[in-house]
């Protein structure tokens, strides 16, 4: 069974070296710094919008009836809650050796603190300009905080807060997503 941990990026390897292996100090070098700027791997597409609506049996005519979309939003838009969908990488792509991970800062922190398991506990999404089919969004991640060690019913670990900022190809802010993650080690059975 794998460790569930991904390799540390070079900047964190260096930060660990500079701080004598102290993961708390290394994590502090990431806080409030824009990281992992990237563009979506594909433009926002109508098919995925309908698949999402189907998954929740959402019949909102804004997303199904072009006349309603024209009247309300000057053409079709994506459901706001889909904002993170447009950045989730393909599970495989030509020439890529490993599966790319969304929310990479989360996985970096798991590795940095040696916490093989993780869950997301809180999620806040703020919506701005509507996202439209054909848009190509860009994103970056910002680590806002890392907690002191905590123990929950899942195990012992740390909480962290990561923001993901989304913009469209015109530079308009389309959304901000804030995640609270809990990385942990499961308690050994007694």
């Amino acid at each position, binding site marked *: *069974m794998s460790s*569930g941990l991904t390799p540390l990026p070079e900047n964190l390897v260096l930060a660990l070296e500079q701080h004598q292996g102290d993961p708390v100090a290394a994590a502090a070098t990431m806080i409030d710094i824009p990281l992992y700027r990237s563009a979506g791997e594909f433009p926002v597409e109508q098919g*995925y919008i309908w*698949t*999402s*609506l*189907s*998954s*929740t*049996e*959402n019949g*909102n*005519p*804004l997303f199904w009836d072009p*006349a*309603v979309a024209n*009247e*309300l*939003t000057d053409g079709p838009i994506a*459901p*706001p*809650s*889909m904002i*993170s*969908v447009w950045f*989730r*990488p393909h*599970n495989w792509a030509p020439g890529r050796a490993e*599966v790319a991970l969304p929310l990479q800062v989360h996985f970096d922190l798991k590795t940095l603190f040696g916490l093989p*398991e993780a*869950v*997301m*506990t*809180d*999620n*806040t*999404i*703020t*919506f*701005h*300009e*509507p996202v439209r089919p054909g848009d190509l969004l860009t994103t970056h991640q910002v680590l806002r905080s890392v907690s002191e060690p905590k123990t929950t019913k*899942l195990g012992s670990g740390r909480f962290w807060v990561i923001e993901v900022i989304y913009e469209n190809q015109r530079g308009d802010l389309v959304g901000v997503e804030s995640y609270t993650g809990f990385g942990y080690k*499961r308690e050994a059975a007694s």
Partner: protein
Amino acid sequence: MTIPRILADQVVEGQTLPALSYEVTATTVVLGALATRDWRPMHHDKDFAVNRNGTQDIFLNTPNQAAWFERYLTDFTGPHGRLGRITFRMKGSIFPGDTMVFSGDVTGTETDDAGCAWANLALTLSVNGDTKTTAAARVALPTTIDDNPWHRRGDAWRP
């Protein structure tokens, strides 16, 4: 064209939204994961979910829960309702075989300095009476038959 809508003055603090009940199957979970491009195995591989994550089964992922909450909100508001912000906290997982129930109350209404009317709502996703996820949502509503929150841009949109 007449599009069904609810106006801001039809929403009051303390108002209860109609509940939404849904039987969750493995297909619900897997379809939700694929619809959100979430390939992580705990949302489609029961062996991984049980033996690596320590959960009883595969479970509904976070982005798809967001989509369910959006559907629940706009079932109430109609298509003019524009979601500004949603915060949710997961307390437990939703598994195949569960009947998930969405419920909600209006916790307040306000009109901001830009003239946009908002309803604030407390939402709950529960199974057998146990709260699995709570959410707080802020939704813009039209103030009149001619108002359209979707046309707000820049400083006129303050979610």
